[in-house]
């Protein structure tokens, strides 16, 4: 059944509206913003306050990057839903209800700028990927690491043959098409590493290998910043030359190593890896301090980009990233060990990165124009 509403057109004709038209007209009405904005502000405040408790990443996922937020059984519109509605409203209003007059030029431009920003935000939310790279001085790396996603990587004769996302690693057998079998005995999102003799875990007669012989993993509460958790699993391997219990956790200095069916296997748990279509070599990392102080004045990295047969030098500094092939490399952090300095670069792949720049210019011009027009109109009256 289709509902029709009666409306009078400008010419005085009586016209019936379809349900879709009614919905469209509802979306265009100015009061929608009046209702969306307070809800968005509530989400913004709650999501910000929640960061103190659950950290930036989790709060962002729960409040801002969600459609519905559940407070127990009570649903509340999430950031995506509200911003999506707002964008839709702005778009429809811009198309259908803009008053194309000179006095409204400032407002129209500001709305167009806001739309560009929001579309850019949508593209970024959908397409942008954030990673980091770790390169010691003098070494070259093509690998990008995810900040949050972890996986269990299996290497056969040093070639990666499988990667299982950490979330899929549940207690029990792991489906694998290999000459050995793998079972997860225990898993922890944030592991506490303790001495084997202090652990109450009992794996029966199964022999303890490698690190499992003197270490055990115990689950502890995840920390506020999710990327700082140390995830890990206790594995049982059977069908290999050295069956038994093994440990795999992040930051483990050595992978799990064993032989099965005449092949050498390695198992590693870590942040999800992606390979760049090129590689970056760190020539020199520099930390420049204020005189007499530990506080840094500037950080920078001299690198060489290796792409096929081509190599060229580049310089990455604070506020001066390197951009190449859609990837942008930012100086993010550094570490020092006995071997030397290690740079940590934040890497972003974002197709929508130009939108904020265009949006800003348009909004600025729009708001300025509006202000000028309002002042001029005031003077005229």
């Amino acid at each position: 059944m289709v509902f029709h509403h009666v409306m009078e057109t400008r010419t005085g004709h009586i016209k019936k509206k379809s349900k879709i038209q009614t919905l469209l007209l509802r979306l265009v009405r100015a009061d929608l913003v009046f209702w969306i904005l307070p809800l968005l502000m509530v989400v913004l405040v709650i999501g910000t306050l929640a960061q103190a408790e659950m950290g930036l990443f989790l709060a962002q996922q729960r409040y801002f990057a969600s459609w519905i937020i559940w407070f127990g059984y009570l649903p509340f519109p999430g950031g995506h839903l509200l911003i999506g509605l707002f964008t839709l409203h702005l778009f429809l209003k811009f198309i259908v209800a803009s008053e194309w007059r000179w006095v409204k030029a400032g407002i129209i431009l500001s709305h167009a700028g806001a739309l560009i920003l929001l579309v850019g935000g949508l593209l970024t939310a959908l397409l942008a990927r954030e990673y980091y790279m770790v390169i010691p001085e003098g070494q070259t790396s093509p690998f990008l690491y995810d900040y949050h996603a972890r996986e269990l990587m299996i290497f056969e004769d040093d070639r990666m043959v499988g990667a299982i996302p950490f979330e899929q690693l549940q207690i029990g057998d792991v489906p694998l098409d290999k000459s050995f079998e793998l079972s997860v005995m225990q898993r922890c999102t944030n592991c506490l590493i303790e001495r084997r003799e202090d652990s109450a875990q009992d794996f029966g007669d199964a022999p303890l290998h490698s690190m499992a012989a003197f270490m055990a993993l115990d689950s502890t509460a995840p920390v506020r910043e999710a990327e700082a958790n140390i995830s890990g699993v206790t594995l049982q391997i059977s069908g290999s030359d050295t069956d038994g219990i093994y440990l795999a956790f992040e930051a483990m200095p050595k992978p799990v190593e064993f032989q099965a069916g005449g092949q050498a296997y390695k198992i590693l748990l870590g942040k999800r890896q992606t390979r760049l279509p090129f590689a970056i070599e760190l020539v020199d990392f520099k930390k420049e301090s204020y005189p007499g102080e530990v506080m840094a004045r500037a950080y920078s990295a001299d690198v060489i980009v290796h792409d096929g047969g081509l190599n060229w030098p580049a310089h990455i500094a604070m506020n001066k990233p390197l951009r190449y092939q859609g990837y942008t490399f930012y100086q993010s952090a550094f570490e020092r060990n006995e071997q030397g300095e290690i740079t940590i670069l934040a890497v972003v792949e974002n197709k929508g990165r130009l939108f904020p720049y265009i949006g800003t210019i348009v909004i600025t011009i729009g708001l300025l124009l509006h202000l000028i027009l309002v002042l001029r109109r005031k003077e005229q009256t």
Partner: protein
Amino acid sequence: MRILLLTLLCFFACTSGVRASSGYETFASLPVLHEGRLQPLESFARAQLYKLSSHTDLDGQAADAWLADVIFDPGGAADKAVFALDNEVLRERLGIEKPRGALYTLAELEPLLSETRSEIAALLAAEEQGNLSAAQTALLALHEKSVTYLKLMRSLSLILPLNVEVPDRYGVTKGDVTFLDLVRQETRAIDDLKSIVADKGDDPAQYSAQQRAIAALAFQLQQIRGGAAGNALFKIMPLSWQGGQQVEFLAPWELLLRGQGSPENAAYLKRWQAMASAYRAGDMNAFSDASTAAKNHVRQRLGAAYPALQFTLERIYDALQPYNWAVFLYAASLIFAALYALYVSNVWVILSRAALAGGALFHAGGIGLRMAILERPPVGTLYESVLFVALVCALIGLVLAFKRGGVAYNFAGAFAALGLLLVAPTIISGAETLGVLSAVLNTNFWLGTHVLCITIGYGVAVMTALFAHFALFTRAFPKLLAARPDFDKLITITYRISLAALLFTAVGTILGGIWADQSWGRFWGWDPKENGALLIVLWLLWLQHGRLSGHIKSVPFAAGMAFMNVILALAWFGVNLLGVGLHSYGFTEGLAWGLGLFCGAQSLLIIVLWGYIWRRERSRP
């Protein structure tokens, strides 16, 4: 830039001749490297004295004279009252009857410090967990202050005369012998002591007179060296005398212990020794001459690396205390404006406007001097943002007052600027310093665009909220003031200023996003500071759209815009309390209470006014 500096110099020339005859003039301008920046000794002294005593002078003794006492005459320093101790629990534990606010000497504190020294490690561990009581926090601070004071007392101990008898065998014949004179004999004296102990044991009663003298000398030299370990506070010695843009400075002991002495350093240290001798002899003329010689020495040798102009400006800045003048003049402007509201007369308008203009001139002069000294845009820290926003408010008030007439703009500008300038010192924990910035903030381009834009936006938003308050007051008490301001006019003004606030905060927020894109790789990260800025923008948008669409009537609009102050305070300062995200920086507990109180009081005021208006107008026929 030079012209600006010269103008500022001329403007403040009348106030710069401070303490011309005191004998410390040149001493106060000697270079010290502190907190990453070369600064005149006076600034260093002021910061240290404030850290210890919460004062910038001691009973009329200026900070530089106090520092001279401490470094040149450390023997007397232990009995000089310099430590502030406000915690009642600690004062009771110390058991010395003194009125609240009185200062304590190191000698008076020593029993408490010795008794609690063993608790320090546990307290530091508890501090990391955030589990310290107020008394424990005060105790840790007291220990830290005592270490700082000891470092200052010992900073020149290698060139001050020792009260020790030097046996003839070491070939040092001069009268006032110093550690530096004996440094070559130190190893020999210790070896001699070892052989004496091996021969006669460790009971000095068994030693001959000469052996006792050797033992005393070796012991004292070891004590002085031990006390000097890690003493890098008083960095007065240039490491290199080649000039250049950046010169590393070391403390005298640091230089000696790192083995980086040079003939140039030795010559400069001799100048300091001459100052010490003159000071200890009480000959202030000789002290002044020795200070001048030291200054000329370092200035000539360092050449371009010696920031002479910045030093002059910094000394003017320190002496002038421009914000105190601004506070005084803003308060005067406020009083004159209030008098106008009660007794309408143009005299009050002129006086109020003149005082506001004078205050803004001192205020802008202070910020201009900071910019010239630090060679960067005016806002890089939370403290500087408060100073700058206060100036923006004063300038908006002034411009509108001259353009539109009336006294309301004066009042608003002076009120906001005064309030913010009074809040500013509570943002920083120590004396006002001219600090350097962390690496990500060390970019003049973004400090000059995003930060300026957003802080101007904050200033305009404060003025919006103030006019909204006026509007509410006017509606609630229409006959209270003789000036009889018009509610509708005030609402229109509030709306127009809010448009400017939206322009600056929106553009500033987006520029911040672009900076974030440039330095962290993402335009928007839902970081608390970003969310705070967005909240301001959304709040303004909501009220403006609500007013345009007719959903928000004039009184709720005024109440909402008045509430802007709370939103602003939370976005500006409150988000730092969360301690998360890339923008979080230091925040004191006391300030958190202050912020809570402000937000509570503001909300209550708005609710009461709004409620009062609603009741009054409902009962009206």
